[in-house]
């Protein structure tokens, strides 16, 4: 099983003619793509972390009717074919989409802009983070935040000083997955944001463009993506965490006691 999962990854590397990696990085398109990717990824991940972390905390600590349904709905984008996701984004935020009129009124046109890239990446990547973050917060012994409150800490202080550091390992691992998924995102982005060099063409889109023409170059960029993703996954996992469990490494899909 492991062999089967690894072989294709390995094969990509064996396929790259030496030197192409550097060549790939020197072309103007690749440099533009790196810049676009860095920028949109940074914003998307910031959004995911800043909005997703409190949202996950609330979902993890509050019990309410329909909670399982809400968590399932959060997971839906995980299983959406990316192109369908892209159409969905257009249907929601496009000119003739659900929010089209409102957006037009405020003079905002989202498709084909970097905002669209950010939204597409956020849409496909955030469920990875949210799911892991909910699990990580659920794994925090609820007595610890409770203890903080009885010691006079406000809900905010409790969150920052207790819940956040204790869930840290799981949050990091979830974020790594979400980051990697965002970097590799293709289908929803091309549908919703298009692919314009220097504006919306991310690394994944650039790879695709190079496919037929410069297959080896595309492979080289693809390989780079794999290396970056793997490195991030691994590093985040090896960062020690202070979860109560006797884990010798942080968990990716952290312990969860609920849906």
């Amino acid at each position, binding site marked *: 099983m492991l062999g089967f999962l690894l072989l294709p990854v390995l094969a990509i590397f064996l396929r790259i003619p030496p030197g192409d990696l550097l060549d790939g990085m020197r072309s103007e398109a690749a440099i533009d793509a790196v810049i676009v990717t860095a920028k949109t990824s940074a914003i998307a991940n910031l959004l995911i972390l800043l909005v997703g972390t409190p949202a996950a905390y609330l979902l993890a600590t509050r019990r309410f009717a329909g909670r399982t349904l809400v968590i399932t709905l959060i997971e839906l984008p995980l299983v959406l074919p990316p192109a369908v996701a892209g159409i969905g984004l257009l249907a929601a935020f496009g000119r003739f989409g659900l929010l089209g009129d409102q957006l037009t009124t405020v003079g905002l046109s989202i498709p084909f802009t970097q905002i669209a890239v950010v939204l597409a990446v956020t849409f496909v990547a955030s469920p990875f983070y949210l799911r892991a973050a909910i699990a990580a917060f659920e794994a925090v012994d609820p007595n610890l935040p*409770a*203890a903080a409150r*009885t*010691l*006079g800490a406000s*809900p905010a202080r409790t969150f920052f000083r207790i819940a956040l*550091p204790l869930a840290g390992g799981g949050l990091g691992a979830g974020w790594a997955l979400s980051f990697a998924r965002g970097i590799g995102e293709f289908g929803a982005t091309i549908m919703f944001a298009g692919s314009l060099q220097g504006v919306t063409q991310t690394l994944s889109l650039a790879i695709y463009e190079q496919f037929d023409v410069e297959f080896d170059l595309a492979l080289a960029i693809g390989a780079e993506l794999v290396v970056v993703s793997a490195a991030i996954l691994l590093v985040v996992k090896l960062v020690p965490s202070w979860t109560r469990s006797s884990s010798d490494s942080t968990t990716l899909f952290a312990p969860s006691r609920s849906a």
Partner: protein
Amino acid sequence: MDTLFLGLDHPLRAFSLRVELEVGRETLALVGPSGAGKSSVLRTIAGLLRPAEGRVALGSEVWLDTRPETGHPISLPPERRSVGLVFQEYALFPHLSVEANVGFGGRARVAELLERFAISELARARPAELSGGERQRVALARALARDPAVLLLDEPLSALDAHTKANVRAELGELLRELELPTVLVTHDFEDAAALADRVGVIVDGRILQLGRSAELLAAPASGFVASFTGANLLPGRARAGLDGLTEVALDAGGTAYSVTAGTGRVGLAVYPWEVALSREVPSDSAVNHLHGSVTSLVSLGNRVRVRVGPVTAEVTTASAERLALREGELVVASFKATATRLVPL
């Protein structure tokens, strides 16, 4: 120092928790079986559980009132109630040092508290590196750092190894006496309750069954639970009025016993081990209850021996055990006076 008042009515999974308590400058122990609602009482006082209905007040300061006379319900969040809560498993912050744990609620008194609890040397250690007794001291120090007006302790001794428990209990007792705070202490050990508390409340299925000094509980257990909890033999049986104003109890385990307490129907006959005497033959003393049985176990505890005879345990001195040359399997007679028994509802 103000009196803590608590009244609450709250549906739990299997029953409703309905409790009223007033705790002055004393330690009140809450005892009871697992799931009886003991922790829930503490959580209500601390503000971690908001009951369906209830009132919590410290003197004139109202912390919770779901039906105040003046309009809107009051419910202060935990951080605005002056309580120190020591959690069942201590709930120390695993990512913070001992010092940071203690200082979490207030930096001012940290050094003094570390000193007071003899954990200054551990200031930089993480909770995972501490022994059970050390953890308990850190938890206490942390709870006291805010100078609480009420102290709540949830099974502070149950996480300790048996052999460290005695000393830690003594230390805790001294501390409580010194603090003179209204204190509610949850425990499942009668000896702990008796040692640490001025009054003991027995809570079963969300209701307080009996509340009083530990000696009162021992002298007149209100129920089978209280009796067996305080260490009595509890012999279930069926009671009816007998001769001489005595109640006659047909024991489930066989035989008949007599009690001075009145009662009919299904009852438990409670008798403490030290009220049970052992002999080879039926003695000619004033005891009217005689149970014949074989010795099933002999436990020597220093100057006393606990002897199990059929359904009852007797506690006799080592001297008399030796005199009788008791051995497992031998037939003996366990005798106890009708005046030494209590009939309790089961």
